[in-house]
């Protein structure tokens, strides 16, 4: 077996390189560069960008679903945060974000900062009256399951002339389990301070089927989904939200359950959540109404993609088999508006104008 002389091999490759045509040095006035230099430039950019954005990276890591990957990302980014904090490198990001009024973007408030509210007696069965001069303040929010319904309510509200709808407040990838991702308990306090809704519509459940919760009484909390300990903690959160959104006499909350899901395993989890919502709402009858979406979207008792609405066949579900689509949101909003019409005296808006789907 013969061994090649490394020197000869290098000479050969040098000769081969010499025989290749020299590539152009410039294009459109730009200097072209060896790929190695481009890689070095990219690495410097990522290093500098990573250090200067360490706080943001740490927050992004912390709001991931609970997993070993999250733990690793948290540890790595915590190291970066410590270094940049000591060197003062986190300040530029804070300053720039502050310029656009978002200086607290990296803050994580993971506590369930609501205290139990003393419940008042249910409102006497007298129809509250609203008029164009005294509009019903409506608020709708929740996780991704709420997006289409909140948007449809918002679109329909002006034509009623008696309902004033706050900006739709649906947020993807959020829920009551993870206040570190979006703190709904703080958000409820803000809504009560700013919107002061007569009626609130909340829809949750899409992301609340995990074992892991942040913001437990003793820090983070992980018990099997649906277990008694898990249910105790989740019920506490639901109860706090319900009581906070109805803390003023006369305030009403419509809590919409998660619609039937196509995947049986997911649907079983949604049923666990819906049972909790229904039970907690029943304890607050008169102030909180649980709206079961299944009779609307699963009239045959099982998942279906389309329903007949106003005499037309309408596709109401997203292809993921879980969320309502735009038309599904319109249908649910229509049901909610009819509930309001029944419950309150809505002068100059009776009957409420029909809202139509896109199909």
């Amino acid at each position, binding site marked *: 077996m013969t061994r090649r002389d490394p020197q000869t091999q290098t000479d050969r490759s040098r000769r081969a390189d010499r025989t290749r045509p020299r590539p152009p040095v410039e294009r459109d006035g730009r200097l072209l560069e060896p790929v190695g230099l481009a890689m070095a430039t990219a690495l410097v950019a990522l290093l*500098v960008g990573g250090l*200067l954005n360490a706080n943001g*990276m740490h927050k992004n890591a912390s709001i991931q679903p609970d997993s070993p990957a999250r733990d690793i990302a948290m540890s790595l980014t915590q190291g970066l945060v410590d270094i940049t904090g000591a060197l003062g490198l986190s300040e530029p990001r804070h300053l720039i974000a502050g310029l656009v009024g978002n200086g607290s*973007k990296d803050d994580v408030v993971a506590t369930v900062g609501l205290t139990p509210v003393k419940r008042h007696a249910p409102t006497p069965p007298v129809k509250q009256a609203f008029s164009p001069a005294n509009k019903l303040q409506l608020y709708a929010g929740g996780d991704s399951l709420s997006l289409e319904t909140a948007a449809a309510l918002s679109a329909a509200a002006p034509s009623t002339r008696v309902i004033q709808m706050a900006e739709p407040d649906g947020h993807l990838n959020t829920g009551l389990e993870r206040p570190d991702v979006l703190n709904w308990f703080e958000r409820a306090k803000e809504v009560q301070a700013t919107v002061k809704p007569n009626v609130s519509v909340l829809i949750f459940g899409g992301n609340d089927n995990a074992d892991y919760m942040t913001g437990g009484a003793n820090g983070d909390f992980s018990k099997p989904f649906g277990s008694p300990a898990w249910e105790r903690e989740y019920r506490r959160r639901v109860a706090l939200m319900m009581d906070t959104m109805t803390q003023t006499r006369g305030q009403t909350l419509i809590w919409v359950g998660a619609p039937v899901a196509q995947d049986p395993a997911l649907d079983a989890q949604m049923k666990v959540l819906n049972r909790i919502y229904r039970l907690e709402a029943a304890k607050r009858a008169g102030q909180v109404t649980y709206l079961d979406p299944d009779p609307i979207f699963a009239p045959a008792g099982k998942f279906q993609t389309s329903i007949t609405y106003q005499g037309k*066949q309408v596709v109401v579900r997203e292809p*993921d088999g879980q969320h309502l689509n735009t038309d599904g949101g319109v249908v649910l909003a229509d049901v909610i508006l009819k509930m309001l019409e029944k419950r309150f005296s809505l002068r100059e808006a009776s009957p409420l104008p029909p809202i139509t*789907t896109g199909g």
Partner: protein
Amino acid sequence: MLFPTFIFTVFFLIVWPLNWVLMRHPSRWRVLMLVSGYVFYSWWDWRFAFLLAASTLANQMFAVQISRTQDAHRRKLILIAAVAANLGVLAWFKYFNFFVTSAANLLGDLGVSWLAPTVTTVLPVGISFFTFMALSYVIDAYRGTFKPTSLMRFAVFLSFFPHIVAGPIVRPAELVPQFDEPRDPRRIDGTRAFFLIAGGLFKKVVISAYMASIADPIFASPGTHSALQVIVGIFAYTIQIYADFSGYTDMAIGLALLMGFEFPQNFNRPYSALGLRDFWRRWHMTLSRWLRDYLYIPLGGNRKGPSRTSVNLLMTMVLGGLWHGAAWTFLAWGTLHGVGLVTEHRLASRRERQGRDGWMPSWLVKSSTLVFVATAWVFFRATSFGNVFDVIGQVFSGWGTPGRASLGAVAVIAGMIAIQQLPSDFGKRAMAAFSRVHWAAQGLALGVTLLVIGALSPAGVAPFIYFQF
């Protein structure tokens, strides 16, 4: 896997050097590209990989059969089968519910009661893009403009990760020959690549996200906003969709450049267009030329007289509208552009016959084109025709509704439109100057750009608008 994410950064930092290391070993390089393309694509849903593989195998079979067959009639039959198969798959995933419920409701209006079967199928990401690329491979084989390559090369072409989910819609003749010729690692256009990636990232995660925060509430409830706010909302969406889509394709072109490959340009300052024909030469350019070469020209183009030209233009734009999604509003958007193009075409022909020039100054042509395009975007963005009429109606009736437009939004919209009016060599000069800076200083400048993007962006990455198409 989305480009502006940590996981993609890690993925690219592995694939990028390997791409160059294996470049001189074509067969190993092709394996790397195929694996990386499928890993990238499967990140959304591993089941989609089977669809991509099936599309690759089927279209390779069609193209090879066409090239081996001499009989013209048989070649045509194979082509028809290929087009039907590709469009059939697209129709199943994208249009089935739309067509069957539309048919059921039409029958219902005629007194025939029929509950159509509907399905819940998740739309495979990028299906419209890779289906169009696969179709151009088969059609080019039929036309004899591109000889079918090996299955492996075609599979690499179709699954090449920079373009697979949202284009640009690259032709086989543009990319496959580049795969066969090893790229030279001594001279790559790094500066242009970094500009495209950083600029695309800024457009996507800062501009598009900010514009969405202005446009979304206005489209959700136009009736609660003043006319001025609604006008700003319409223009905010006009900027959002440009920043979102062009931002993505800029990143795709930049990433391909870092790997040594050139993609065709996809956007060229579209809001500086002088008329609709000019707009479509500047907006989603690779789709425009696909529709021109594979739909408009085969329909007869402008070779069969003015009336037929108008019909062909209209059909092309209506189908182009439908390509974007299964909704009547997309169809209306395409029709609106089709009617606009036909009108413009006819007026231009008449002026040519009469030997006259256009009487409008260019600033007025640009402005009216922009207003037309922005108005048409209302159909594209709206959730229903009711929503379209609410938005446009509020522009006329909402002057008494209180509400001030956001000055920040107006400034960003004006800035984004103004940038597109700059001479085209402005960016070239900036890149030329940047390329002469020391590499470490370049890295530092790009790192600071990442800081600005990170600090100004909202948390998380919003989905790209064009992924749903």
